């Protein structure tokens, strides 16, 4: 697991799963599986912006970019490379 994936995973487990990562896979949908609610997505966005020094545009607030660890990593890599 690369460093980026681990950082996101740690953030999600620590902030939303009370440290119990039981069953959280990298492709688990945050909203459908109840890992993060709507408010939590914004917290995640804040975290990504600060930690990785990127800006998440309004049009990028879609499940394809932000609704699982895998989606976030793919999206982040695209942003960081750009």
């Amino acid at each position, binding site marked *: 697991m690369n460093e980026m994936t681990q950082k996101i995973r740690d953030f999600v487990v620590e902030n939303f799963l009370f440290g*119990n990562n039981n069953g959280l896979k990298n492709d688990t949908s945050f*909203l459908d599986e109840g890992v993060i*609610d*709507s*408010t939590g997505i*914004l917290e995640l966005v*804040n975290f990504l912006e600060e930690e990785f020094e990127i800006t998440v545009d309004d049009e990028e607030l*879609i*499940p394809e970019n932000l609704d699982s660890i895998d989606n976030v990593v793919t999206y982040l890599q695209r942003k960081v490379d750009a």
Partner: protein
Amino acid sequence: MVGPNMRSKKATLIHHFLETSAHSYPDKTAIIYDQVRASYSEINKSADQLAGWLIRAGIELGDRVVLIMDNCLEYIVGYYGALKSGAVVASLSSDLKPDGLVPMLRELEPKIIISSWKFERLLQATHLEVSEETALLLKSPKLDWSDFHFDTYSWEDALKGEEEFHEAEALDESALASIIYTSGSTGKPKGVMLTHKNIVSNTYAICEYLKLTDKDIQMVVLPFFYVMGKSLLNTHFAVGGTVVINNKFAFPTSVVKQIVEEGVTGFSGVPATYAYLLHRSPLKKYQEKLGRLRYCSQAGGHMSRQIKRELREALPAHTEIYIMYGATEASARLTYLQPDRLMDKIDSIGKPIPGVTMKVLDNNGVEVAPGRKGELVGYGPNIMQGYWRDEEATSRVLRKNGYYTGDLGYQDTDGYLYVYGRKDSLVKVGGHRINPQEIEDALMATGLVTENLVAGVPDELLENRLVLIAVLKNSDCQEVEILRECAKRLPKYKLPTQVKLVRALPKNSNGKVDRAACLRLVGL
């Protein structure tokens, strides 16, 4: 054969809303949630089965049933089913952490907790340190519960039972129906006790002024555990309308699209909902597609003029905007502003809803003249019975004139009411008493920010100094520019001395701005 409990008479208990609509519109779609479509008769049947199970499990009149679920079909079945059984339903925030949940469970002493696999981690983390009699009813559990000492049942099994059950004869409109915890900005959360009559009367009053009918389709993005979300559910079930549940407000484009696809007629939100919709969704681009959207309603706190005007511009001309005011302690609603007065009474919260009276009282409980400020006090059949197991807090707000809202306001000569600010949120800065809301509104009027919060933080010289936490509309705007624009609108002593820029203001699970979390975010 025993059929489901249905009735043709007007409702006197909350679950009668479901029963009368199951009688009048059995096959009509009551709930749309992703791919799920459920009719009134299906929901009523499941609620009957659940009520039967709860009674067999030992639920008696007045016992507490705790509901921890996000918005979904099972929440609705759980809510009406538990009410049918005679229980008092306490729906708790799905956003609670173990530290917040444990004290609530201790004081509620619930007999049953209804929840789902989504909250298993939370429930296990609390170790359910509550009375030994508490049992857990779980929808699709995924974790292992064998190490825990209390009984765990499956929702799916509970709903296999017979629909027959006997509603307790003693269950009447004066019975306690609901305990809703307030999102109070200070102190510990308080459990607001509402009877069937409180909620039924308020529901009918809301249906009347919003002119709701069975043709109405309401989009719900607010949680049902919040009093406003609950009121959206009850009002639409009262008229036989349809409720569209959308839990993806974090992705606002999906919400706007679904409004169009499902032909939604009503949308409701708190101020932050509209700030977010206006600035982070393609609402304006969809204007021509919103032909069926009859109205938008807003409650849950003060919304700035700027947002009201932007919203008026973004929505089609036929979509009415209802500004409303209320409190959990009032079962939801106290006043509303007629949509045709929105522009000429733009800062007003309107007039009392049917059956409610509002007064502006001074510190001695005497009504003040129009234009003079005092505390807003509401009276009517919707006012709560008190706070759960907290007589001291109850006696502070429930007095002979009614419910003391803690909001300062006034009435104009036409009888329209205005909220000036919270009684306990005035900030003393160097001898001046300052109302943060006034500064926040001035900031919004600059058009430079999408949302902002002004707070007083302790200061050695001034007692307090004002800090502005703001979200910029354009990221290239400078702090000095904001202060310059503020200086054009406010006297010097009302200018914030420190500006902190953030990407979004933290919200609580009701969607309202969380002041404490905002201050933490900027390290204050």
